[in-house]
């Protein structure tokens, strides 16, 4: 774990110095009409050298990163889940055709061809068994990118910058990213285990929309969940448990007695209490009171010390590098007196998503507020 933090820091330093090699890329063909790129899954993908029309599918940040590196105009199709996630911040997405339906991961292949797409960008989960590539390639390149966590982020964004001919913009975004990541990691990296509070982060009841138990949380195979907590200077109580998304027994939470409990609240919970469309904190406050009364949490150090926080899921796990600053501020307010996660969030939305959304006036993303 400490080693991975060290590697991440090294990656940022290299990226800042502009020395990060874009691994797995080579140009082929004398006319340079195509380039061959090794994607996240190790597939050799032949991509047009001048990509003009892109479809971004899957969950979370694929769309956001393509927009952040200045390639928004290339996007001609997306998926329903991305449309939902970005409806408030990048309303333009709502006018794009949705070529994939979330949930089942099904793609409207005919529409992808109809739209004249050059390149489809998907995350590994949506790519699944490769049916998308089987149906679209070689006519349309299918590139798998994983920008869901810190491990490969710099590499992945660099490659997207090269593929989409937005290398300068990608470098600018990565510099911003590195600056904020480093502002946290440079402080937390030196924390010894005793200084790292035990954290239980969960996204509700595993089997249903209720709060649990059992609690839906992250195991060791999670891409983002526990690694963000580690980078933020905490220790997840579930980091060593097998699996990616797991159902945790309430007894275990009582046994481990976390110092912090963080409930990720997603709009799909049908809990209209947090997010872009909510401006009143009353519902979040009520919900927090309900969680505080949970049998599993009642006697915990976290509840006794009033350290139970609600964090909007699309910030916690979606815009995870922004989420990192929220986590760091929650876990170590004394170490980060000047850190302003809301301002960083606003900066990202304004600079890179070119969004007019004002997070200081609208939305509830963390409760209690800092």
């Amino acid at each position: 774990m400490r080693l991975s933090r060290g590697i991440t820091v090294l990656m940022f330093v290299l990226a800042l110095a502009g020395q990060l090699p874009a691994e797995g890329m080579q140009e082929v063909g004398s006319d340079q009409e195509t380039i061959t790129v090794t994607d996240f899954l190790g597939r050799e993908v032949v991509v047009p050298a001048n990509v003009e029309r892109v479809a971004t599918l899957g969950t979370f940040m694929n769309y956001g990163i393509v927009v952040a590196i200045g390639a928004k105009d290339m996007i001609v199709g997306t998926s329903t889940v991305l449309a939902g996630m970005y409806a408030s911040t990048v309303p333009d997405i709502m006018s794009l055709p949705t070529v994939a339906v979330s949930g089942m991961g099904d793609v409207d292949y005919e529409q992808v061809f109809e739209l004249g797409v050059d390149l489809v960008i998907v995350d590994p989960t949506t790519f699944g068994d490769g049916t998308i590539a089987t149906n679209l390639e070689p006519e349309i390149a299918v590139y798998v990118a994983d920008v869901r966590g810190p491990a490969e982020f710099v590499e992945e964004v660099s490659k997207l910058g090269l593929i989409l001919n937005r290398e300068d913009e990608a470098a600018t975004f990565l510099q911003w990213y590195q600056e904020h990541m480093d502002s946290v990691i440079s402080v937390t990296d030196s924390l010894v285990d005793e200084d790292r509070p035990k954290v239980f982060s969960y996204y509700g009841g595993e089997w249903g929309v209720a709060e649990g138990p059992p609690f839906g949380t992250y195991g060791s195979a999670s891409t983002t969940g526990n690694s963000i907590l580690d980078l933020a200077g905490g220790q997840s109580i579930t980091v060593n448990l097998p699996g990616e998304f797991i159902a945790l027994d309430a007894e275990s939470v009582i046994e481990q007695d976390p110092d912090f409990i963080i409930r990720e609240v997603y709009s799909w919970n049908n809990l209209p209490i947090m997010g872009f469309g909510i401006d009143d904190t009353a519902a979040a406050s009520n919900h927090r009171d309900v969680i505080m009364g949970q049998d599993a949490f009642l006697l915990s150090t976290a509840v006794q010390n009033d350290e139970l926080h609600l964090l909007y899921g699309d910030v916690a796990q979606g815009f995870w590098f922004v989420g990192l600053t929220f986590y760091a501020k929650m876990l170590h307010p004394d170490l980060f007196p000047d850190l302003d996660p809301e301002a960083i969030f606003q900066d990202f939305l304004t600079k890179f998503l070119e969004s007019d959304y004002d997070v200081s006036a609208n939305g509830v993303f963390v409760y209690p507020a800092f």
Partner: protein
Amino acid sequence: MASSTERIDALRNQNRRLKEAYQRQRLRKRLFVIVLVPIVLALIGSAISFGSADISFFDVYRVIFTRVFAGDSAEPVTRAHIIVWRLRLPRVMMGVIAGIALGSSGAVMQVVLRNPLADPYMLGISSAAAFGASLAIVLGIGVFGGTYLVIGNAFVFSLVSSGLILALSARRNASPEVMLLTGLALLFFFQAITTIIQYFGESDAVRAAVFWAVGDLGRVDWTMVAICAAVVVVGASLLIWKSGDLNVMSTGDASAKSLGINVGGTRVFTMIVCTVMVATIVSFTGTIGFVGLVAPHLVRMMIGADNRILVPASGLVGALLLVLADTVARTIVSPVILPVGAVTAFLGVPLFVYLIMRRKGGFA
């Protein structure tokens, strides 16, 4: 050549032997149920001693005895109290109640529908409940709000499905064939709508809806246990009360009618009782399969098809299976919890297959 007196004596002896054999068999069947009760109690006693938290056997029972005999205020809210009284015990008790409901309903369904494959979900209860839950989880639409959003939807749609089937079959003399076929049709209908809802849902919400349908005992508290217990005690008692009529109906509708049984009425009545019981359980736990199908067969293979014994014994065997499976589900990879529905089948199938292989007769 034997005289008529000797022949009459021989017949009397044969009759006496038959009577003794019948009484022995009846005693064996009753003993089976009597023995099952302490086994279930012992299993409950063991199940509450296991969990991911390290609590001694003594502490577990100290908490329970203090709570039971000294009341609410005697036991301070401690870690052991929360784990044993608020988390483990309601879960185990719900396993017992759900097992009784599913097992006894399964036994009755198999007789009433004259189909060995019948289970408590035969009238589309599980698919209708899953539809109601998906409606709540994925789209946020519900009959009730708050805590009872999902539970209420699952319950109401279960009843709608079963009510529709019973109403349609009542127009065709409540025949088992009509019940089965309309049940299957509605099962596919609700599955199809659920798929369409989930198709357009966000992946995480769909995942939650799918997990809901798998079934789990961990989402219950004492209030839910009390609601389910009340329904199941009344329901199971009614099924046992009607089990004598079910014995007669096993010989065929015509002969049952000739003996004065209201076949259609009994069929609809028992189906309503089963539906209300199972719909209540499903609403709180999700769909826990296999128990309702297998428990009656296990009992039938061991003690025969007398419904007066079969119905209560199936309930107890159902409780046994479910509590055992749940204990495994929450301890085998502790503290990660496995869905009890999956574990139930995993544990029960080998036993079931073994008994099928040993069995000589059919399944009628």
